């Protein structure tokens, strides 16, 4: 069952297939001579080892994890990828097509990239010239490792041809040198691989070698050099200069690899991998990748609407649906990922950033004689799923062992099932600021073992 991908869509490979021996077929119908190649890139997105540039002159990576099979089974070109054998330093395989000669990617009449595992097509990304403009090369799709192996439909044009594409990945192009000079890094051209048992490309004619390249293309071979040319600027201090380049300087701010549905990026940002829908505070999305829709999420009915108005425990939510990764943050507050596992938690609604749509929320009354106005409210969240709570500053979690008191305005959350009342003896009347009615109350929590109260160092 093939999943149709659209441009920009990403997915974990395990969602498509459990296989690690993959067939990648690419069809490209366009005038002109197109070279299809695969770049094996390191964690910086650079071609640190040019033996991982698999193209017509080098149809195989050293250990054979990436093999170019040539046209077969109706595909213009095809590759065999053995994920288990790919060395750890290679984190990304980019499949590209580059035009040799005049023309542009706009002229592509039909094209797709498909992944086949065990003889079944599991993924297909179709593209056409409408997706591109005057570019002369196309980055079609990536198979990359971010925690686990993933696949992304890239569908992005690139202005230059194959040589420029290679340069942009940090490779070098030998300029018009005799072929032997460029040869040392090369593995001998192996016999075309095909028909290996266990690995099943769709039935079709036997694989052939790619058509012989035109002579000037033969010179477009990568030699040596991993790092971009050492054009380091003159710096005053040369004790231990870092490698220049904005991308290198920013490595420490790199996206954290996804470990689950909710991933902490830093203390102040979380990433949610969508599939199942999630709710988040309105306006808390700071960035996203993929196909995601943000929609108004109402309070659910007129009664709830008025209830929310009356109680102040109003969730201003939006519904996030689609496929992709969404980054949430709110005003640089500290974020905490809480997995409920079927338990329930009372939360101040102002501290809720996002949660799984599987969780239930309801407004809960806290009744006590000492509360001005008679009642107070909190939000009870329960069920199977994860929620993200925000606090201003590092909070403190206090296990409830004797009577525990917390300021109403600083308390963030507490476990459900405790007896909550107002501690009148610590009620303070604070009329320092004119117009402020004073600190209303401190809450007293009474509970058994296992209960806790979370308090933030901040009073709203």
């Amino acid at each position, binding site marked *: 069952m093939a999943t149709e991908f659209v441009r920009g869509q*990403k997915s974990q490979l395990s969602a498509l297939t459990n296989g690690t021996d993959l067939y990648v077929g690419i069809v490209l119908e366009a005038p002109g001579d197109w070279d299809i190649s695969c770049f094996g890139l390191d964690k910086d997105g650079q071609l640190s080892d040019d033996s991982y540039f698999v193209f017509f002159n080098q149809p195989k990576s050293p250990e054979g994890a990436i093999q170019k099979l040539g046209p077969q089974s109706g595909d213009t070109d095809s590759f065999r990828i053995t994920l288990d054998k790919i060395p750890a330093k290679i984190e990304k395989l980019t499949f590209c097509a580059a035009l040799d000669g005049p023309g542009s990617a706009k002229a592509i009449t039909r094209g797709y990239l498909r992944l086949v595992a065990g003889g079944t097509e599991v993924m297909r990304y179709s593209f056409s010239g409408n997706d591109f403009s005057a570019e002369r090369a196309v980055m079609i799709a990536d198979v990359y490792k971010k925690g686990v192996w993933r696949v992304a439909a890239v569908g992005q044009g690139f202005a230059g041809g194959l040589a420029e594409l290679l340069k942009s990945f940090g490779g070098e192009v030998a300029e018009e040198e005799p072929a032997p000079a460029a040869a040392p890094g090369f593995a001998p051209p192996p016999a075309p691989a095909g028909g290996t048992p266990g690995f099943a490309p769709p039935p079709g004619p036997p694989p052939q070698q790619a058509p012989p390249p035109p002579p000037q293309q033969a010179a477009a071979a990568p030699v040596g050099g991993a790092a971009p040319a050492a054009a380091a600027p003159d710096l005053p201090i040369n004790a231990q200069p870092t490698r*220049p380049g904005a991308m290198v300087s*920013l490595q420490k701010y790199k996206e954290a690899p996804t470990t689950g549905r909710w991933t902490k990026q830093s203390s102040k940002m979380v990433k949610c991998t969508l599939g199942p829908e999630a709710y988040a505070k309105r306006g808390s999305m700071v960035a996203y990748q993929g196909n995601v829709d943000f929609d108004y999420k109402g309070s659910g009915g007129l009664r709830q609407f008025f209830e929310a108005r009356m109680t102040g425990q109003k969730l201003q939510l*939006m519904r996030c649906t689609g496929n992709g990764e969404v980054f949430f943050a709110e005003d640089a507050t500290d974020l905490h990922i809480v997995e409920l596992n079927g338990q329930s938690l009372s939360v101040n609604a102002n501290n809720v950033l996002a949660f799984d749509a599987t969780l239930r929320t309801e407004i809960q009354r806290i009744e006590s004689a000492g509360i001005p106005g008679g009642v107070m409210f909190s939000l009870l969240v329960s069920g199977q799923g994860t929620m993200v709570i925000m606090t201003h500053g590092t909070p403190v979690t206090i296990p409830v062992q004797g009577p525990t008191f917390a300021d109403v305005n600083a308390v963030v959350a507490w476990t459900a099932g405790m007896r909550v009342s107002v501690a009148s003896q610590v009620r303070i009347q604070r009329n320092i600021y004119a117009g402020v009615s004073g600190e209303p109350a401190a809450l007293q929590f009474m509970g058994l073992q296992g209960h806790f109260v979370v308090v933030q160092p901040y009073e709203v």
Partner: protein
Amino acid sequence: MESSLLQNYGPTQLFDRMSNHGSKIAKVVMQPGQDLFARTGSMIAYEGLIDFNPNPPQLGQWLKSWATGEGVPLMIATGQGLLYLADYGKDVIILQLAGEGLSVNGKNILAFDMNLQWGIERVKGVSMLSGMGMFNVVVRGHGWVALTSKGTPIMLDTREAQTLVDTDALVAYTDGLQVQPKRTMKLGGLIGRGSGEAFQLGFSGQGFVIVQPSEDARPTFSVRG
């Protein structure tokens, strides 16, 4: 005197032209002939002989920027010594450009080498859709740049997929990326029931986007009571 203040927060070692001291202070090694643009008022300390010129004639270009509302009052620091910069407790990002171009939101500029080429550019597409223009400072060349971010930022790789960013959380991006405004247009959004995410900028191409964990649009101070 024994003190944790002295032991733990003393000067850090020098390696580069610019470095971080903690996450919120930028430290710049000043040398004659290597002048620096820095946000006015961002100096928190210095050692050596450093001069500050808050309104130098070279900054005529900024007049244009004040007219556009993206005023980044800058000063020029010259001299020899060590200069410490900070911006009201925001996180500092230091990066070294090797010929790349960087487009930075004016609010997030802290300092940059004077030998970089720079200018003010309008971010494509923003004014048309959101009704407000967005002007960025574009720096290019070989040298160092210090940016600020409210909270620990994140760097997203635009090679991986098209990256859509809330304009209020956008700090900087590689100059030359394809920028596409995106509006999540829904009927509900027109009658005041929007998701709060009406408008984003989409980036794609070879490069990165820096995003801060805060949508810095609201006023920082509000009167209480």
